């Protein structure tokens, strides 16, 4: 049989489905960081806001990286629909706890796709996602380092201002 479909696409369709779900997840993470940045900006946590705006942009870059990869492999990348973003937070600490939980979810999802790709000999997809594995380790570490500041300095009064001053911005 002449392999017309294989000539058109160099990944498994199920990998494409999972990558489209990942596009949705990265898009959602980007929107979620934007909501967190807005919360911080309105309350004078300027460095936290700047950090979260940058996180939002990074998540969008991740989304676009996967989006382009799906299309480059001959797949059909789907533009994500993003609804129900949480805009209400009780504290600065909750913002970073939510951010860490979000990053852990993304890591889990990436690992899940890699496991699937490996099981089904979809090595191109596995190879492409290796970059995301390292990236997620760094993202999780950044959030944990910030949460450590709350452990060290507390989460009330002037400590919040001091923590905000120590949020890494490039």
């Amino acid at each position, binding site marked *: 049989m002449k*392999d*017309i479909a294989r*000539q058109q696409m160099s990944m*498994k*369709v199920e990998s494409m*489905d999972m990558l489209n779900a990942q596009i949705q997840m990265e898009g959602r993470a980007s929107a979620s960081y934007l909501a967190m940045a807005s919360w911080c900006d309105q309350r004078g946590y300027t460095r936290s806001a700047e950090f979260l705006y940058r996180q939002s942009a990074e998540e969008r870059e991740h989304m676009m990286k996967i989006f382009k990869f799906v299309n480059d492999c*001959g797949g*059909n990348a*789907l533009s994500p629909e993003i609804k129900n973003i949480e805009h209400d937070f009780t504290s600065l600490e909750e913002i970073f706890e939510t951010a860490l939980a979000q990053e852990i979810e993304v890591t889990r999802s990436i690992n899940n796709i890699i496991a699937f790709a490996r099981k089904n000999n979809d090595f191109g997809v596995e190879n492409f996602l290796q970059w995301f594995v390292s990236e997620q380790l760094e993202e999780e570490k950044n959030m944990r380092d910030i949460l450590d500041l709350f452990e060290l300095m507390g989460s009330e009064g002037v400590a919040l201002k001091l923590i905000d001053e120590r949020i890494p911005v490039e």
Partner: protein
Amino acid sequence: MFPMERIHSSQYYTFFQSKTEKCFYIDFGQKVVGFRFCELLSLRQKIWAINIETHFDGANIHGFEILSLCNKEHFFILNTLEVLDLKDLLSGAFYILGIGTQDSVLATKA
């Protein structure tokens, strides 16, 4: 129409590929529709996006789905069994074409 090679059949539908045209055809019974590869992927995504549970939990009381194919060139109204059968057809066809996994084929049989 150029000579076509039958790839897979389900209860209601048959999937073909045309080597000369480098495209695919599905015989829906009342008509045969040609698909370029990207249109085929789009059909698959639309079928996969249907939540069949809504046909049983009262959210979709009629049990019908409206499908627009090939950039709105064709419209189909499918009932529950036809949706499931089309899913079965596509899982089998993609597997035989070498770009689907067996897990997906088994999932539609479950």
